[in-house]
């Protein structure tokens, strides 16, 4: 888990309550046995650069990035001094809004805009009101960086004040209240994240495939498709794997092939059944020299024939097979008449 703050003041309580060490590879990054903490600095550039650098260093050690920070409200409907989540995170690009947005908490009522400069100097305040409810300086960039590393990312914003053109003492006010803000962030963190161990793919059972010979693409297939099947079917697959492991009569390669067929069967029972019907239909008319192929996606109503002819008998067999081939039955299956 990586926590990202713009300023040290906001993270004060985290430093006080935990012995955080400076990371040897990056002086803005701190860590202990439970989490990592980054002080990314203010603004989009700083947060994009420093979050990216921190994730690049930590990469496999973290799955979740959490941004805590102060935000201003554009509308009086947003509650002050409360930590809120954002529904969507937008940003601006030069003089207009940037198209690319990020979804954060679908249940939230508030949309956040990460602005290019401090809002009190910003003439775009009226435009921002068309798109969002709160403004900050970092969240969009932290999301951009985290998402590009395919990390889960969340943002929690403490609303310090309502943003108006007249407001001139924002920074001073944030500095004065930093202990109070930091306390709220720490309470939130303690309640929601601390002591919760990150579990990678905890929903997915780790399959024991040591007794199998698995190629890269087969591994990808199992990794992508096993989690999609229902819990009951997962139980079936687990039992089936045990059976396969105990079976000394088939090779490791064949075990993998059977396992993949079993997963496909559970994933696409209708398609699998139809393929089985077609295979049964064609099997009688195939041998070592004659082979029929059909579109496994079941979209095309055609059969492809491969035949090896070495003698007159081969020709006679081929003619017999073709004469007897139940092509109409094959077409009926493809046309939904089965």
């Amino acid at each position, binding site marked *: 888990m990586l926590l990202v703050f713009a300023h040290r003041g906001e993270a004060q309580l985290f430093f006080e309550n935990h012995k955080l060490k400076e990371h040897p590879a990056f002086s803005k990054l701190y860590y202990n046995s439970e989490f990592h903490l980054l002080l990314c600095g203010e603004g989009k550039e700083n947060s994009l650069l420093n979050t990216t650098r921190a994730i690049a260093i930590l990469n496999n050690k973290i799955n979740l990035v959490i941004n805590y920070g102060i935000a201003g409200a554009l509308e009086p409907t947003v509650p002050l001094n409360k930590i809120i989540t954002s529904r969507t995170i937008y940003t601006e690009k030069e003089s207009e809004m940037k198209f*690319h*947005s990020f979804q954060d908490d679908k249940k939230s009522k508030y949309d956040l805009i990460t602005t290019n400069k401090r809002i009190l100097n910003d003439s775009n305040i009226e435009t921002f009101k068309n*798109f969002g409810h709160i403004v900050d300086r970092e969240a969009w960039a932290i999301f951009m960086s985290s998402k590009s590393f395919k990390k889960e990312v969340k943002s929690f914003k403490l609303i310090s004040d309502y943003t108006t053109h007249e407001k001139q003492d924002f920074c001073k006010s944030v500095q004065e209240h930093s202990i109070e803000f930091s306390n709220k962030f720490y309470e939130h963190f303690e309640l929601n994240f601390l002591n919760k161990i990150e579990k990678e793919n905890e929903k997915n059972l780790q399959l024991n495939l040591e007794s199998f010979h698995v190629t890269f693409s087969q591994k990808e297939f199992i990794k992508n498709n096993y989690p999609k099947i229902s819990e009951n079917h997962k139980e079936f697959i687990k039992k089936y794997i045990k059976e396969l492991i105990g079976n000394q009569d088939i090779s490791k390669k064949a075990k993998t092939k059977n396992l993949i067929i079993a997963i496909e069967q559970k*994933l696409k029972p209708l398609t699998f059944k139809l393929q089985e019907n077609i295979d049964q239909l064609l099997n009688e008319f195939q041998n070592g020299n004659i082979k029929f192929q059909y579109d496994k996606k079941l979209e095309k109503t055609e059969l492809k024939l491969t035949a090896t002819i070495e003698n007159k008998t081969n020709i006679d067999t081929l003619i017999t097979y073709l004469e007897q081939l139940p092509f109409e039955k094959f077409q009926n299956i493809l046309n*939904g*008449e089965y």
Partner: protein
Amino acid sequence: MFNKIFVEQELRNNKNVLQIISKLKKEIPVHYIEKYTDVFEKVKKPYLQKQNNLNLFLASKKGELVKEAPPAYGFSKNKHYYFFHSLNCIFECEYCYLQGYFNSPDIVYFVNYEDVGTEIKQLDKNASKESPVWFHMGEFSDSLSLSSLSNDIEYYFKLFSTLENSFLELRTKSINIKQILAQNPVNNIITSFTLGPSSLKSVEKKIPSPTLRIKAMRKLIENGFKVGLHLDPVIYHDNFEKNYFELIQELSESFELDNLKYISIGVVRFTKDSYRQLLQNYPDSVCQSHEFTTSFDGKIRYPRPIRLKILNYIKRSLVKHGAPEEIIYLCME
């Protein structure tokens, strides 16, 4: 229903705009902007924000107002066109292709329907009685869901009563037929209803029940209006045969199915973008299936044998309940 209303500056005093605003709640804030594209789709606004953060844009459609439809569109082999009366829909259907189509779920309502009428008149002139043209209202929005706010239905009824070579299809999932009932029936306007069984209620949010839609269909038929039916998209689910059979039975008990101008049947299908959106927005939806495959036109569908079995079953059930075979067509197959 709406959080904010955005109005194009030049339409500030437009009679249609003033009428629509007057019919909405007074507390909805109205913002005036240069053009609707200054805000609409300017940022990627997630589709599910339509549940609690939906804005209405009142705008004037510029450029091409009427577009030729792709092949295999509509009932007859005549030329088909669709036109833009609105973008996006107040309803929320899990299978809806609009979730992958626009970058915002906000509603844009075009108030310059007289300009659309001018283009329609021109195309009508180029057509003939032997080779009429079809116009479809509702390609990017429900034709009737917001019709009580505007006068466009009245306008189109008056327009089409003067056109000899054109048909208009109003396509809806609503029961908002008040505006239609206030008009004189014309033979060349068909109000078509999209229906699915009540077992799929959770998939179609905020939409009146099939029973209420069937009642609305009956009322229009009884009052001399032309009505069509779309059983599209058909979604394969537990007890699918029984559920669709009961729906067709309910239809046939409400009115003779030969009263319908046409019936279309189509099995659920997605572009890659809209399927990605479905998985993101409704990961547990019954509309998705591991059986899906990429089919002949690049769309994601059930494999051919499964969808043809579904189509054949529904077609047979319709015929069994008195629907003439010649009014049934299979959509996008």
